[in-house]
């Protein structure tokens, strides 16, 4: 991608913020909660997709940075009295720093080795959250006190929504610019061919390290967002299930596309809520259906739902002579 984000997309960000301010006055807590949850997942998934979809690094450490973001933001607030507006950026920055430290050895690894090493890191982090009683309250879970933003208490869905909408808009806007930059193109080039990337002057290792770092930053921010509308964190929620959920959002929606990731977040976030209407006896099949959806999505939508949508749109736009018809010109030889 290149250039600047289209004005329409930037306007959509404005609309998102507007909705964040208006909806709390219109909807019951339940919808606000689901909305906040979706916005948090959006930040989390956008971050994972930078690594997975844009840079092509199959890394699983994301969930650890998310957990770190939650605990760090909450503990900075509770233990040191550092307000959210400072605490969350600090937490996210430290998450990014850990991401950088992980990336230095991890970028030497490929494919299965990278996937397993980063997964192992995530498991180790979860173990630390569960075992480090004196700081995280361990398996009892941590009750978080409500954060303050410029002296204004947040902690319920109503008050948190505008703040979360602003954070998502900022992160989304940053992503829009990021993918349209030299760095964003370097991510894609590394994903498609490290050889071509290196031969084009891209420092492959540095690019990967940056992708890890930025991705960890997003996860840290998502963790900070969690503290805005939730009041309790437990290590059990920071395990493989949440990771697979975010991964599924990306894959079903369409990895390596912002629209696809958002679509995936929306679909998989709303799906369990929509399933509430299903007959009770069928609920037990959810896990089975979840696996089936994953398999079918991978089989029939290699580019995710977004890929299907884009493909349709493109085909519509391609009424007229197909570009293959352009002939190869035969240049005259120099004498």
């Amino acid at each position, binding site marked *: *991608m*290149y*250039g*600047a984000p289209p004005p329409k997309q930037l306007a959509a960000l404005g609309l998102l913020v507007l909705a964040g301010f208006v909806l709390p006055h219109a909807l019951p807590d339940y919808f606000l909660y689901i909305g906040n949850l979706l916005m948090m997942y959006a930040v989390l998934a956008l971050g994972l997709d930078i690594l997975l979809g844009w840079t092509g690094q199959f890394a699983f450490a994301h969930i650890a940075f998310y957990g770190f973001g939650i605990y760090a933001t909450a503990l900075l607030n509770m233990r040191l009295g550092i307000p959210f507006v400072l605490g969350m950026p600090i937490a996210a920055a430290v998450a990014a720093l850990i991401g950088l430290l992980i990336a230095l050895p991890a970028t030497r690894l490929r494919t299965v080795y990278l996937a397993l090493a980063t997964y192992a890191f995530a498991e180790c982090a979860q173990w630390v959250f569960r075992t480090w009683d004196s700081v995280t309250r361990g398996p009892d879970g941590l009750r978080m006190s409500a954060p303050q933003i410029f002296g204004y208490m947040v902690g319920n869905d109503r008050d948190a929504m505008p703040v979360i909408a602003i954070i998502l808009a900022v992160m989304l806007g*940053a992503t829009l*610019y*990021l993918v*349209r*930059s*030299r*760095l*964003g*193109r*370097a991510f*894609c*080039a590394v*994903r*498609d*061919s490290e*050889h*071509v*990337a*290196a*031969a*084009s*002057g*891209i*420092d*492959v290792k540095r690019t990967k390290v940056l992708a890890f770092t930025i991705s960890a930053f997003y996860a840290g921010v998502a963790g900070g967002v969690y503290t805005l509308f939730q009041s309790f964190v437990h290590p059990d929620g920071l395990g493989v299930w949440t990771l697979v959920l975010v991964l599924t959002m990306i894959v079903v929606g369409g990895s*390596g596309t912002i629209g696809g990731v958002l679509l995936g977040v929306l679909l998989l976030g709303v799906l369990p809520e929509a399933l509430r209407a299903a007959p009770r006896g069928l609920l037990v099949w959810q896990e089975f259906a979840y696996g089936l959806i994953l398999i079918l999505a991978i089989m029939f939508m290699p580019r995710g739902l977004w890929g299907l949508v884009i493909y349709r749109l493109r085909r519509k736009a391609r009424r007229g002579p197909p*570009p*293959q018809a*352009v002939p*190869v*010109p*035969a*240049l*005259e*030889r*120099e004498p």
Partner: protein
Amino acid sequence: MSALFELRDVTMRFGGLTALNRFSMQVEAGSIHALIGPNGAGKSTVFNCVSRFCMPQRGEIFFDSRPLLAEPAHRIVQLGIARTFQNIEQLHRMTVLETVLVGLTSRTPRYFSFAPGATRARAERRAVEEAEEILSQTALIGFRDTLAGELDFGRQKLLDLARALASRPRLLLLDEPAAGLRNREISFVDSILVNLARERGITIVLVEHVMQLVMSVADRVTVLSFGEKLAEGAPSAIRADSKVVEAYLGSEAAHA
């Protein structure tokens, strides 16, 4: 005699296999230098050593009297050496224009990625304009927004060349640019190469099996066989060299 590019005594082993054995060659500025040899002779290894994808056990490589082996892979293009790839190694999921923008990396300012603003907008605009110009030159402008992976084989090769050209190289390493192309496309490549060397003064090292192309464009030919230099000279001399004909050209000479 001004050698722009020189390999001196390069030996490269992979496990027990010696891909290059004390191989030396000199390339003169502004020339088109072909590197030929049977499959597995080590031609691509030469390029991979220059690209810094592998590290020779011994020997040195100089570009403009500067030792290359001390540089990391991504610095090579900044020094003025660009390359294409033999197998179509493509940025499959990037569009044609984006691919050329990637080629422009070494010449795009490293503005802060997240910062919207006038500097960034100007830099992006300039890069896109330049990329479009390169696409026009290589007759790919009609495919500007097509995914590279969706191009036909010939145009993928062209795109690879366009990407390499985007860095404004002084030395261009082309790995089988004509392999698998139809005659009509080969003559197009032919014309582009000659144009690049004569008009823009780009030095070209060409690995190629299509003798028709080699013989028509090369100023000088080096023949590699099993990692060692077999012969070197003008195309006509190589063609006449009995050793070369025996070792390599053999049956193919008849076709050429």
